[in-house]
């Protein structure tokens, strides 16, 4: 059978090409991003420093400060950017399939609001101080966890979670926790504290370093990407409808519950590590679908790559635009994402 009966092989080849192209783009992006900053370092040197430091290959032709800038300062930041971008994108994909709404994004479930409340409590009132350098992220993660448990409890009736209840519960919990965060800022009466909360709320990769948090983020995010890709067919079926899922051998309630747990965990980790960065999880899945079509086995990995590349570039802009001052990355992603979303909506309605 050499013939491609359904055009499926053509699409697979196209996806493979995109995977190669985007992976290349990812590497180039990372090298250029690491080299960009107050002290510019060319990408080739960046690559050699990384190879030398990581694998012990090559001779040293650079200065110790350059090595420190690349390895200690910028690389962890770029790695965190890649992870967060990929994580936001695939969580967006999963949520859009779960609630069958193309406007769903990872923050729909109110998890980021919970994390923000936790972060505000840490920054303003010293909550979680016992966790030392991880006080902020631990506190944010606990907030995220509390928010997702709350959404869970509200959305669940008779052992089931329906799309509509999930949406409503997420929005309601999100608003309540947003109010909590605002109240904390107001009650603390600390201008400097408020500023750092604000900075954190708008997202930043500035906390990145080679530490346990980065390792946890890597494990959780890569695990989520793998899980969603492997179960791509089930996501396809769930996205069509509950009744259809049931008749095609996928229990919609059980699968949605598992997805919800995984996505909550992943978004909790993301927000703890980098604050709430908007629009990536909303826009990237649409881009990916436009490139490779709807089946999730393709959309998930393509979204991960696109999200990673996009977020790192947004971070480069955030660092360079008003240098030496740094802009919260969420401002950049929202400024880029909003017009993009408008274009998408116009296209949706005209087709």
């Amino acid at each position, binding site marked *: 059978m050499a013939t491609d*009966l359904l055009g499926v092989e053509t699409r697979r080849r196209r996806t493979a090409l995109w995977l190669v192209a985007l992976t290349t783009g990812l590497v180039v992006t990372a090298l250029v991003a690491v080299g960009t900053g107050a002290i510019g370092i060319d990408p080739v040197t960046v690559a050699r420093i990384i190879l030398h430091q990581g694998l012990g290959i090559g001779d040293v032709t650079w200065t110790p400060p350059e090595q420190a800038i690349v390895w200690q300062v910028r690389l962890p930041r770029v790695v965190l950017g890649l992870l967060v971008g990929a994580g936001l994108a695939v969580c967006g994909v999963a949520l859009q399939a779960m609630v*069958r709404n193309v406007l769903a994004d990872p923050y729909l479930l109110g998890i980021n609001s919970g994390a923000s409340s936790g972060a505000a409590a840490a920054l303003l009132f010293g909550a979680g101080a016992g966790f030392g350098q991880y006080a902020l992220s631990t506190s944010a993660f606990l907030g995220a966890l509390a928010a997702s448990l709350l959404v869970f409890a509200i959305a669940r009736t008779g052992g089931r979670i329906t799309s509509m209840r999930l949406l409503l519960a997420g929005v309601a919990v999100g608003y309540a926790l947003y109010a909590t965060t605002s109240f904390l800022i107001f009650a603390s009466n600390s201008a400097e504290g408020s500023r750092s909360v604000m900075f954190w709320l708008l997202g930043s990769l500035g906390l990145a370093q080679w530490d346990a948090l980065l390792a946890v983020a890597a494990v959780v995010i890569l695990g989520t990407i793998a899980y969603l890709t492997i179960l791509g067919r089930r996501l*396809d079926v769930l996205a*069509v*409808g509950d009744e259809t899922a*049931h*008749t*095609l*051998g996928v229990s919609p309630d059980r699968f949605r519950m598992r997805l919800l747990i995984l996505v909550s965990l992943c978004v909790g980790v993301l927000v703890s590590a980098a604050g709430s960065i908007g629009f990536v999880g909303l826009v990237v899945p649409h881009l990916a*679908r436009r490139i490779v079509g709807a089946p999730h086995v393709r959309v998930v990995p393509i979204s991960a790559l696109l999200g990673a590349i996009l977020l790192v570039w947004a971070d480069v802009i955030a660092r360079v635009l008003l240098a030496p001052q740094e802009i919260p990355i969420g401002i950049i992603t929202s400024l880029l994402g909003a017009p993009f979303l408008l274009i998408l909506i116009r296209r949706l309605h005209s087709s």
Partner: protein
Amino acid sequence: MIEAEGVSWRYGANPVIDGVGVTARPGRLLGLIGPNGSGKTTLLRLLYGALRSPTGQVTIDGDPLPSLAPRESARRMAVVVQETTGDTALTVAEMVLLGRGPHLSTFQRAGAKDHEVAARCLTRVGAAHLAARSFAGLSGGERQRVLIARALAQEATHLLLDEPTNHLDIRYQHEILRLVHGLGTCSIVVLHDLNLAARYCDDLILLGDGGVVAAGTVSEVLEPKILEPVYGIGIHRIELDGHLHLLFHPNDEG
């Protein structure tokens, strides 16, 4: 063979289905008929396990439905449901290939054999030319045929259909039902149109008021004196070219 005994369902305090029994035999097409609100779709949902009856039980080839894993149940029984699909961007081919899912393990991708099955099923419903189109862009009738192709692609020995002729023009109403009738599977179809039921079903169950009003062969059930009180309309039955036909006249016309 699908057997149900004593199954019930209620929405709130209203029993829609109350202690109903169904037997669908291999190689025969069983029609579920009845007026609006008589519980045809609810009964069908009980039969494929989307609803779990608190009483009685449903078995497929002797195995109780709840004892089957979802995938196993999907390999034995394909269902065409009435569901408004969200704004899916799947192509028709991808939609039909979803029907192969129950036959693939988690790590397995659809292969050449699955593609052949999907292409063959699309051809059978006269939709092969739609393969590369977007499912969301199809007309109601085209969608219905694609969904039937997906059910066929499941290669199950039982086929359940909820009003498969909805949205279809008269030619495809007949073509689809003739196709289902000719499959030789154990099939159950919910139908509104009594003349289509007369033409293509082997057996019928007439529902009304939460229970079975009549069950038997087409000729036994489609009796004006049985149908008239249930539907509240005058009915003439004639036989033409060896087929049953029903003619309707509202009661006030005498």
